[in-house]
């Protein structure tokens, strides 16, 4: 009870507020599904699904760049009838899709979303960790949970009472077992260098030395391949390979049960891309700038942040203007509707540019908080800590979105591996490379004298 009483209400507010990060993978689904569909369209030189619209009276149709299509699909899945095939094991059949989806909510708990917030409150300095669970087992917990999520696929395949589902389930379980080993071993090098399982410590090490991708390039590629394989996506989607197994373990599933598998898969991509960004790309740390420097020049940092946001809004505007100019020359029948829709986007983007620039200038001119250094930590006000956390979060999100794009990019570029090739790659190539990498890293670390 003394732990509860020793904390102030601000600490409790932030600690409980951090639980909102559990929903990040689910929110990423909203981003990833349009990204996947329009990305696939982009790679195959077509438009992708963008025809559904919401009709707004006195204005016109709004398609939100294809988002409405995904809302329609989600609604369809949600309101479809749930059914089980004859002879299926009813209990396991209905429980199985919930397992990967439940684990989605647990897995973000160890990822550091921002650096530890250190600030003055009242007469004492407060430190709040960036991850929901600040435990020194850290990344191991994530691996334990992700190894449990394979039960969903395995049980689904078994309970469906279908040969295709069953084969898919067998392949899933063997894939998970094989690639979990590669994943763990390729990660060990960076853990050895940082000397901790705690992801906050690992990011801290990378911030003060070098990014993981620089010191462990081989491990990075092993980890990337193994984590793509672990999510069970192309080119490693032997568990649900359409030409061989119809749809693998979820052949018999429909409606929202299928939806849960689908969402589980995308959330898994989200978690894995956050993990790669954290382990090998410096996590929340801003490139070339340490947190201390950033906090010492908080106003300037915020100004740069708003500048970047304003630049992104301008880039979006540029795209819209270029495309509307092209469209105006065409003889497309729904030209006017689209141009009408684009007027709205232009308005929103211009407002955003003005707001971002104004905020940036204000931050630059009027926000220069004082900082003190206590025991080597920069201790500032709550506002400084929150500002730093926001910048960190944004940097992490940008890095992870890049890796999500890598997932989509790989899926629509490479052809599928055959099952025995996948096993060969996992056990005979990646595992050995990861082992050699670990030994070499250990020897070099010992010789150089780090840890």
């Amino acid at each position, binding site marked *: *009870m003394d732990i509860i009483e020793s904390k102030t209400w601000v600490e409790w507010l932030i600690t409980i507020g951090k639980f909102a990060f559990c929903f990040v993978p689910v929110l990423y689904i909203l981003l990833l599904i349009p990204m996947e569909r329009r990305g696939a369209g982009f790679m195959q030189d077509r438009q992708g699904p963008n025809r559904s619209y919401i009709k707004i009276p006195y204005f016109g149709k709004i398609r939100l760049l294809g988002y409405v299509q995904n809302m329609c699909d989600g609604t369809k899945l949600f309101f479809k009838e749930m059914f089980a095939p004859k002879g299926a094991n009813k209990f*396991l059949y209905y429980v199985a899709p919930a397992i990967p989806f439940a684990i989605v909510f647990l897995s973000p708990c160890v990822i550091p979303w921002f650096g530890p917030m250190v600030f003055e409150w009242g007469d004492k300095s407060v430190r709040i960790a960036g991850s929901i669970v600040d*435990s*020194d*087992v850290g990344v*191991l*917990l994530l*691996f*334990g*949970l992700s*190894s*449990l999520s*394979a*039960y969903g696929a*395995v*049980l689904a395949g*078994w309970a469906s009472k279908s040969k295709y589902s*069953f084969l898919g*389930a*067998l392949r899933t*379980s*063997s894939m*998970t*077992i094989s690639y*979990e080993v590669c994943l763990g071993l390729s990660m060990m090098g960076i853990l050895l260098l940082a000397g*901790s*399982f705690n992801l906050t410590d690992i990011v801290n090490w990378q911030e003060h030395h070098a990014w993981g991708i620089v010191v462990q390039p081989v491990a990075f590629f092993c980890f990337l391949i193994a984590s793509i394989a672990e999510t069970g996506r192309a080119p490693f989607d032997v568990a649900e390979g359409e030409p061989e197994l119809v749809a693998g373990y979820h052949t018999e599933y429909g409606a929202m049960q299928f939806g849960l598998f689908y969402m589980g898969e995308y959330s898994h991509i989200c978690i894995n891309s956050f993990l790669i960004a954290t382990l090998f790309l410096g996590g929340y740390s801003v490139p070339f700038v340490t947190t201390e420097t950033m906090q010492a020049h908080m106003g300037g940092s915020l100004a740069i942040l708003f500048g970047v946001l304003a630049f992104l809004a301008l880039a979006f505007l540029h795209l819209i203007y270029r495309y509307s100019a092209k469209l105006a020359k065409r003889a497309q029948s729904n030209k006017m509707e689209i141009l009408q829709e684009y007027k709205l986007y232009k308005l929103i983007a211009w407002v955003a540019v003005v707001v971002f620039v104004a905020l940036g200038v204000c931050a630059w001119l009027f926000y220069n908080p004082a900082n003190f250094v206590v025991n080597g930590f920069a201790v500032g006000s709550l506002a400084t800590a929150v500002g730093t956390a926001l910048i960190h979060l944004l940097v992490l999100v940008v890095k992870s979105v890049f890796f999500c794009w890598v997932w989509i990019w790989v899926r629509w570029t490479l052809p599928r591996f055959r099952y025995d090739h996948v096993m060969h790659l996992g056990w005979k190539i990646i595992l050995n490379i990861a082992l050699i990498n670990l030994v070499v890293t250990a020897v070099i670390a010992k010789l150089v004298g780090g840890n």
Partner: protein
Amino acid sequence: MLALVYFIILAVIAVGAALCVLLSRHPLYGALSLVVSMVSLAGIYGLVGSPFLGVVQIMVYAGAIMMLVTFVIMVLNGAKDKRTPMFDGVSFFIIPAVLVLAAMVGFALLRSTMTFDSATVAGSVKVTSETLFNMASTGPGYFLLFEVIGVLLLSAMVAAIFLAKRHLGSVISENTEDKH
């Protein structure tokens, strides 16, 4: 207080799942109950302040080993066992023996003057590895046990391969005999 509530919840789940392992007639349900039991045991490990052990329990046992077990059950005949009776003549001796043993152990635990010191069980990664791999001559010497277990596992693996090979050979010869 809060820890006690959590402990009771986890303990009830763990014991209930363990009973399900005993009582379920379907091997797959048995395996799944074992997974649930292991996960709640991991929760108890975390509760007494050694999250590392708990996470290793989830990763190794619930994640990897039980996945292999379910794999084997699914590949082999994973049907409900209706022939084996749950209780037979031997049960009359075994059930009282188990109950008496449990009573004795419980009595001994209740009467013993054990005090709970969270500092001694707190097994973070650092404490665990320092205890396990302490090679000083004055140390506990657990690393020797660790090495011995490694050799034991290796010999078990070699024996399993040997047995499987012999078995495979006989199956092949049987098959050829059938064909002739």
